[in-house]
Structures are given as structure tokens and as C-alpha cells.
């Protein structure tokens, strides 16, 4: 076994791309994605403010929008110009304070403030819609307070008359709605899974490229595969732990459970990835096509994790496809541990979901035997299985 490990090590040294894959490529990817989202909380998103009233009330509302850290009002005198800016993506929302806003308010009419937000940039649009509505409601409440006081309502009663039911919203497990905490962990895990898949696929297809597959059969295919598992699993686990330590240690994202228990979860996920790649390898037996097929399976992993769009709302077929991807099993354990503070027991319970991946051994075994017969016809008679 030691010699087989050495064989893997020597092969790794010859292969520049494989070396890059286990060292700086994932690091660069992790750093790029983290840096991309490093702003973490959306701030000063441009909003077009069309003030057609130019009254003290409309200016006051404008100041409220300015005071919100999420929004950055940009004054437009012309609605058409604001719409054009929205269409080109320069601003993400348009607030129109209509003509005679103050007049209508004072005379007891019901003016309408128009708010249009960009639904095409869904994430930003939704955030701006809720922030602008909250801000405007807050600004208008100040006006209503004055009105009530002027009408002779007891100051102690004003708050109740305005909002009899107050609310307290708590964003559980991610208190400040941090986008790094929300998006970056699943993204990095998806990337990590891709890297792991590529590493193992390269290691297998190297045997094809260097035409050493027959050697593998001579050395004992099972032992060669076991050596590959032993060689690449710790390497990839190291990367997995690195990204966890980077996110929850260095960046200090909130974590309720013990980071250590994610180690077995990552290990099981890696084994499932190996099983997939192995099955694809023996079925396809062509380096470019293995990569294509595995990429087809693993590239959409992020979309299927159910972080951005809830799993329960996916169509059934999508849920089935989701179950084929190891990372979607892992992410559930990850969230249970990181958010809900569960322990090793949950990890073990949830790892039962991976059992289905063992079925992948069947095609791998069948096709491996077939290759064995074509590569080493002399063994066929002696009846040695692999």
C-alpha cells in the first residue's frame, strides 16, 4: 500500500494542473468569491428620487431616504430621466413624490406615493422595496404624529393610536442579514465539491492517458483505488477544513455548533463524490467526457442546494435531481450544525441519506470487470474478479 501511495505522489508531481488543483486554484476561487461579497451588507444602493412637490414634507421624506444606510437618493427633476436611469440599471428604484403632496395631506385628501423597484435584480429589488417602504412609513408617521397632536390627542396616547400593534422581527441564525453568512458558505462548498471531483477524475483519467490502466489491474484495482482514496481524501478534507476555518474562524461568521463535527460530514460527502466519479470513469472511459459528465452533474450544485430557493418549493423532479448531488445532503448537515447548533448525532443521522450513493458501486463494478477482461484477457480464464 505504501508503494501505491508513493505511485500516486509521483504521478501528482508530474502533473502541473493537478498540483495547481490541490493547492492554489481552490484558494484563488475561495478568495475571489469571498472578496466579491466582502461588502456583506448592501449599502448606498442608488435610488432615483423624483420630487414633484418641493414642499417641506417631500424634502423631509427625501432626508429620511438619505438617512437609511441602504439607500442613496439621487435627485431627478424629470420622471422620464429617472425611468431611463432605471432601465439602464443605474438606479435600482424610483420614488415619486407627487405634485401637491403636502397640500393633499393638509386638506385631508389621500395622495399616492409611487415606488417602483427593479424586480429583475431580485435580491436588490426586494431589499430596496422593504427598506424604502419602512423608511417612508417612518417618515409619514412623524407627520401623522404631528397631526394627532394638533388634533388634541394626549401625547402618551399618540404612539398607540399610530401603531397599536408593534412588531419585533428577528432574523434567526443570521442576525444582521449578512450576505457573506448567507451566500458564501454554500458557494464555497459547491466550489470545493467541484475541485474534489476534478482532482479525483484527473487522478483516474491519468491512468488512461498514460495507458497504465492495465498496470492497475495487475497491481490489484481495488488496492489502487483504495490508495487514491487514501491519498486524495485527506488533501481535500484539508481544503474543506481550511474554508470552514476561514469562514467561521477568521471571518467570524456566527456558528452555534462545534466546527469539528463537520469533519465527518465533509468526509462522507467526499466519499460520495468519489463514488460518482468512479462510476462515471468506468462507464465513460474517456478523460474529456468524464469531466463533461461530472461537470454536468456537479456544476449546478449551488442552484440545487436549496439555499437561494427553498427546497420545499422545488418541483418533485428537481428534488430528485437534488438528491443525486452529494453537496445538497451535506448542506443540510452544515446548516443544522452551524445554525441550529446540532451535534454529532444529527451528523450521523443525516449521513444515512448518503446510503443511496452506494448503488453507484454497481455500474463501477460491472464496467470495471468488463475493462479487466479486455485489458488482461489472460485473467479471464483464471477467474480472478478484478
Amino acid at each position, binding site marked *: 500500500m505504501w508503494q501505491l501511495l508513493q505511485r500516486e505522489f509521483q504521478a501528482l508531481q508530474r502533473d502541473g494542473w493537478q498540483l495547481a488543483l490541490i493547492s492554489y486554484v481552490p484558494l484563488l476561487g475561495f478568495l475571489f468569491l469571498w472578496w466579491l461579497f466582502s461588502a456583506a451588507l448592501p449599502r448606498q444602493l442608488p435610488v432615483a428620487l423624483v420630487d414633484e412637490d418641493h414642499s417641506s414634507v417631500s424634502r423631509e421624506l427625501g432626508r429620511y431616504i438619505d438617512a437609511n444606510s441602504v439607500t442613496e437618493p439621487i435627485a431627478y427633476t424629470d420622471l422620464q430621466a429617472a425611468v431611463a436611469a432605471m432601465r439602464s440599471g443605474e438606479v435600482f428604484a424610483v420614488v415619486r413624490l407627487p405634485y401637491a403632496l403636502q397640500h393633499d395631506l393638509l386638506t385631508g385628501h389621500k395622495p399616492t406615493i409611487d415606488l417602483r423597484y*427593479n424586480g429583475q435584480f431580485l435580491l436588490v429589488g426586494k431589499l430596496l422595496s422593504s427598506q424604502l417602504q419602512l423608511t417612508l412609513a417612518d417618515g409619514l408617521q412623524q407627520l401623522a404624529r404631528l397631526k394627532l397632536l394638533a388634533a388634541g390627542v394626549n401625547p402618551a396616547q399618540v404612539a398607540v393610536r399610530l401603531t397599536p400593534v408593534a412588531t419585533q422581527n428577528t432574523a*434567526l441564525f*443570521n442576525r444582521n442579514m449578512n450576505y457573506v453568512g448567507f451566500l458564501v458558505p454554500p458557494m464555497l462548498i459547491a466550489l470545493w465539491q*467541484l475541485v474534489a471531483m476534478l482532482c479525483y477524475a484527473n487522478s483516474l483519467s491519468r491512468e488512461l492517458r498514460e495507458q497504465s490502466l492495465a498496470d492497475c489491474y495487475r497491481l490489484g484495482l481495488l488496492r489502487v483505488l483504495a490508495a487514491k482514496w487514501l491519498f486524495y481524501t485527506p488533501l481535500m478534507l484539508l481544503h474543506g477544513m481550511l474554508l470552514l476555518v476561514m469562514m467561521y474562524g477568521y471571518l467570524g461568521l456566527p456558528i452555534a455548533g462545534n466546527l469539528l463535527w463537520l469533519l465527518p460530514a465533509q468526509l462522507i460527502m467526499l466519499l460520495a463524490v468519489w463514488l460518482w466519479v468512479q462510476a462515471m470513469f468506468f462507464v465513460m472511459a474517456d478523460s474529456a467526457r468524464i469531466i463533461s459528465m461530472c461537470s454536468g452533474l456537479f456544476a449546478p450544485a449551488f442552484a440545487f442546494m436549496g439555499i437561494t430557493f427553498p427546497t420545499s418549493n*422545488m418541483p418533485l423532479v*428537481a428534488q430528485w435531481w437534488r438528491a443525486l448531488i452529494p453537496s445538497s445532503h451535506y448542506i443540510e448537515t452544515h446548516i443544522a450544525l452551524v445554525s441550529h447548533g446540532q451535534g454529532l448525532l444529527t451528523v450521523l443521522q443525516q449521513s444515512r441519506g448518503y446510503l443511496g450513493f452506494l448503488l453507484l458501486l454497481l455500474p463501477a463494478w460491472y464496467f470495471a470487470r468488463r475493462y479487466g477482461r479486455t485489458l488482461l484477457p489472460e485473467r479471464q480464464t483464471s477467474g480472478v474478479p478484478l
Partner: protein
Amino acid sequence: MSWWRWIGLDLLSVMKDRAIALTLFGGISFYAILYPSPYLNNVPTAQALVVVDLDHSSLSRQMIRHADANPGISVKGYAGSIDDARQWLEDGRASSILVIPEDFRHKLLRGNQVTLGYGGDASYFLIYSAVVQGLTQAGLDIAHKVQLRGLLAQGTNPTKAEKSLDAIALNAVPVFNKGLGYPAYVIPGLFLLILHQTLLIGTGILGAGQWRRSGYWHQLSPLGIVLCRIGSFTLLYCVFSALYIGWCYYLYGVGLLASLGQVLLLMLPFLLATACCGVALSTLFNRRDLPTQILVLSSMPILFASGFVWPLTLIPEPLIWVSQLVPAVPGIMGMLQLNQMGADWSQVLPRWLQLWALLLLYLPLAWWGVKRRLQQLPQVNA
């Protein structure tokens, strides 16, 4: 031989190569179905809510019914205390909590302010926003009812009471993606990225396989090969683009505001620049399995750097500079502006010119790379 014949030879070698045919024809048709499939239900609905009702009054039950009636929420059960409810969240039986405090009804009727507690799992932003939006709506409704009742009891005229409750109307409407659906948000950008990445992979695998051997591609000058390959892949991708933009966009209900002419005008430099970038990249590869690997790893960074998921104003400047060199980035933004947000051509013009500039940037690189490769060949053969 005429140019058409060279292009024909190029296309033929694409069809014959099983790895490329699998990636291009298989991949493109498969991804067209696979990628949108999680999002087909458009918006998250019926998120599991657990209620902690400490009041047990008629009003608290009404509040629960209002919450349950909201499409975003489905009341899954009741917990006796907040600790119990926490257990529900940890088991995954619910993703959000509603806490109705003691004396909810009593206090409201006496004219005291009460506070409702909403909690949602913010590990999933879409679930959280659906739940909070639904609960806020239900809470406002209850408050409205109580206020109205109070005013009516004081003898206010009903019309006047309604008016004094909503002194101002806030008319908040999403535009461009009016239903706030997920497919319409993701698909336009994602499909352009799929076209972009598969094109690069296709040219990459073809090039990596060809440069080291001799064949019809050595009978042309380096510039001739580059132009011929750009031509053949652009032609091929006209078909794929027609499938994605012409058919899938309709199928998945994506916003379509641009005219056909404008879309064609934008796609032309996008495909040309991408094909040229692909040829330039292909000269870097020696192994046929490398292009897919590199491009698969780069897909996610490119998608998130393109500016429709995460606003460009929040992305660090150096990353923006680098990402502008990728044809997909101006391509996606241009398409979104033109087709999904209905911008004028004059507003898209900078992106369009950028795509042409990228073509001009990659053309000499591709020419140089191919020339270098062709010079290497005699050494390989010797």
C-alpha cells in the same frame, strides 16, 4: 478552397468529436431543462410557521388565521413556549416563529400598545423575506381592524375613519420582473453564461486536440484558421442562441422587451468576441480534459461578478476591472438592459462597443497563439 468549405470542415470535426458533441449538443439541451428546474414554481410559498400563542383569545386566533391565509405562510402547528418553538426550528419542522404575547387582546382593547414577535430562519433569505412579509401584512391587518373599531366606537363616520387611517397610499410595484419570480431573475443571465462557457469549452477541446497534430487546419495561415474557427463557432452558436433566447426565454416567461433586430445586433459581437476568446484560450491547452475543468471552475465567479446577483456598486473595483475582460460580463448586462429592462440602444451602446473592443483584443492574441502553435508542430513531429 472557399471559406465555406473550411468552415464546413471545422463544423464537421466538431460533430465527429464525441466529447465536444456531448458538451455542446448534450450540455446545452440538458442545461436548458436542468438549470431552471429548481425555480419552476417561481416564488416561495407556504413556508412552515410554528405559532406560540400565549394569549388564546379570539383576536389572537384571528391573527393566526390571517397569517395562515397569506400565500407565503402555512401554519404547521402550535408550541407551548418559545423554547418548544425553538425545538421545532432545530428539527426542521418549521422555519419561522410567530409569538403572540399574553394579554394581546386585552391590551389592545384597553388602548395599550402590544408587540408581536416574528422570527424567521435567515439562513435562507427568500424564506425569511416571504415569512416576514406575510406576517407583517397580517399584523397590519389586525392593527387596522382594531383602530377602525376604536374609531367607529367613538362615533366617527366610517368613510372618514377609513381615510384617517391611511392618510397616504404607498403604491409599491416591482417592474421588469413583475411577479418577482425566480426564473425570470436567474435565467436571462444564466443562459447567456451557459452559451459563453460551452462555446469556450468547445473551442478549447477542439483546439487542444488539434494543435499538436497536423490536419486541414495547417493548410491555412494562422489568421485564416482563427477567422475560420470564429466563423464556424459563431454559426453554430447562432443556432444555440436561437434555441435559448428565441425559445427558452419564451418558455420560461422571461421579460422580452427588445426587438429582434436589437437582440441580433447585441448577440453578434457577443458570439464573435466569445469565439475569438475561445480560440485564444484554446492555444494554451495541451490536454483535451483541461478546458472543461478551468471553465467549470470559473463559471460561478463569472456569474456573480456579472452584476445582476450582487450589485456592481458593492463589488471591489479590481474585481470589476478583471471581470470586464470576460465577454459574458458585458454580454449579460447588455442583454438584461436591452431585453429585460427595455433600455434604449443608446444606453446599451457602451456594452456593445466593449464587446467589439474585446474582439479586437482577443483577435491578435488568438492569431499569435495559433502562430506559435503552428511553429511548434515541426518540433513535435521531429
